[in-house]
């Protein structure tokens, strides 16, 4: 029963990691861009939530109404003003520009919010749980996060496969030259893809802040979890990304159970193991 509990906690933690990873997976799928600043953008969203909570006294969940559009607008702006200038055959410019952006965001947050560890308070919800058996309970908050991750992925699947915008995304992903001949402005499409990705990042950031402590330096670690979830799940598959997040979460939970110092290590080792056994991930879809 104790182990079952560990695995359930791991699965639910995986929901948060899937939320981290979905934005990364999306922008890779549409424009083959790997954004090193992804983790720092998650932390930025958490701090924006904090500013809403402390500044105008909003509930963290209500702050999503402001933070999501704000991050989406930032995403569109970043893509049009910065990342679009780096796209091309060479992988170096997007990598280095996003790396520079990562350092800039981290240190700006450090200047504005200091290095103190923060948290978004949601009151009684933080400790609420559902009793499944005598010594088995599920936290309500982790469950909400997990269900939200599923909701986000379902919504993105609908956008991708049922809408005109999704068709443009898929076409741009397949062949960015031809799609322009068909009258699609791919710079705008890329901007929209990044806007959606950062909208998801905003949700991920608020949930991060609600579930755990955060400070300006934790962005890169979130990037690594997101990246690992994407690779474990297989490139280009959103459901695979959820599976990747769950694998990572369960590995970390088991590691933490064996020895608290092994939590992060166990997650990374699970990733390396998948990389060695199935280099293309568990559910590969895109061909790199």
């Amino acid at each position, binding site marked *: 029963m104790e182990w079952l509990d560990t695995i359930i906690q791991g699965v639910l933690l995986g929901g948060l990691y899937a939320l981290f990873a979905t934005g990364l997976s999306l922008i890779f799928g549409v424009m083959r861009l*790997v954004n*090193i600043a992804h983790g720092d953008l998650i932390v930025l969203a958490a701090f924006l939530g904090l500013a809403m909570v402390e500044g105008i006294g909003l509930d963290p969940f209500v702050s999503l109404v402001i933070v999501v559009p704000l991050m989406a607008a930032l995403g569109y702006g970043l893509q049009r003003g*910065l990342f679009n*200038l*780096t796209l091309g055959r*060479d*992988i*170096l*410019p*997007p*990598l*280095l*520009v996003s*790396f*520079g*952006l*990562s*350092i*800039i965001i*981290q*240190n*700006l947050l*450090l*200047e504005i919010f200091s290095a103190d560890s923060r948290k978004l308070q949601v009151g009684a919800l933080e400790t609420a749980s559902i009793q499944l058996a005598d010594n088995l309970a599920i936290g309500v908050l982790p469950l909400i996060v997990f269900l939200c991750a599923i909701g986000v992925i379902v919504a993105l699947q609908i956008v991708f496969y049922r809408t005109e915008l999704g068709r443009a995304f898929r076409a741009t992903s397949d062949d960015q030259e031809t799609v322009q001949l068909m009258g699609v402005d791919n710079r705008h499409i890329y901007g929209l893809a990044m806007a959606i990705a950062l909208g998801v990042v905003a949700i991920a950031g608020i949930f991060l802040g609600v579930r755990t402590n955060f400070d300006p330096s934790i962005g*890169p*670690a979130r*990037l*690594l979890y997101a*990246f*690992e979830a994407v*690779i474990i799940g297989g490139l280009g598959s959103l459901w695979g990304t959820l599976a990747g997040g769950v694998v990572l979460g369960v590995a970390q939970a088991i590691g933490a159970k064996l020895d608290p*110092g*092994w939590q*992060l*290590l166990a997650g*990374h*080792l699970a*990733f*390396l193991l998948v*990389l*060695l056994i199935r*280099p293309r991930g568990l559910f590969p879809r895109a061909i*790199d």
Partner: protein
Amino acid sequence: MRAAETPRFRIERGTRASRSGALVALLGLIALAAGPWWLGTGNMRMVTEIAYYLALAQMWNLLAGYGGLVSVGQQAFVGIGGYALFVLVILLGVPALAALPIAALLTAIVALPTAFVVFRLRGAYFAIGTWVVAEVYRLVFAQVSALGGGSGQSLPVDAIKAIAETKAGREMAIYWIGLAIGIGAVALVYLLLRARQGLALTAIRDSETAAESLGVHNLRAKVSVYLVAATGTGLIGALIFLQKLRISPDAAFSVTDWTANVIFIVVIGGIGTIEGPILGVIVFFVLRELLAGFGSWYLIALGAVAVAVMLRSPRGLWGLIGERFGLDFFPVRRRLKLLARAPDKLP
């Protein structure tokens, strides 16, 4: 062309800049080598730091600029080199200076299986994969209590005393080793690029497919360049922590210190050139001294400059200067020079 005819062209590599540059560089090096007699302790530390940052930048430039392998995980090898030195000195009683080359060798041994894992990822994924591996090493070293666990440990006094009896003697030894490693890194990259391997690397950089079709074994060339850069980085790491006399997982595997700064140096100076990292390291230290009082604004400024350079001038500052004035201090390209008497028609 008949055998009796004299060739009408000559293959040249040296340039006027490279010959006069070599003379100036030689004079500068003699002055620096005499540093202990005219530089103060503080300045000697600074020169050592500049030298090892130059060496780190050359290693990363070799990897990313010439090998096309953009790594964000070179701090793994700085840390392993540093920890190898501490293991050798503290646990095995090896004299510190003798431990330096052994630490480099040990880093190479660790880099081989690491390459096996990270080479499963390509391009941008390789970059983040190397970062994951560096994190794994950091977390593993934090678990080893014999090495001080997460809080780290210092070199014992008698091991430090064994380097040289006096403080001045130790500073002198570390200064010269640092200088030698800085210059050695430049020389290594230069000689490597002028050799066959360099030609192969340059070909891969320009077009992987074309290089492969001409008989270059791409993967082998890339793995070798990865191992050379890892070994060099390990040696530099060992020196860095010999100078600092104290090591901890967070300092040894710091992504900001050993990778972010290094990437900024190379990108600002000019990636894919030997002059670039030299210029970049000068810009880096000037900016650092100027902005020392502004805390993290310094890193923000550095990041912004690097982003601007990458967008406006992807070949860096050296790309602008070198092209404008036709300068080439480290000629690794071959030039075809036609002699005065031009042929009537091309053969």
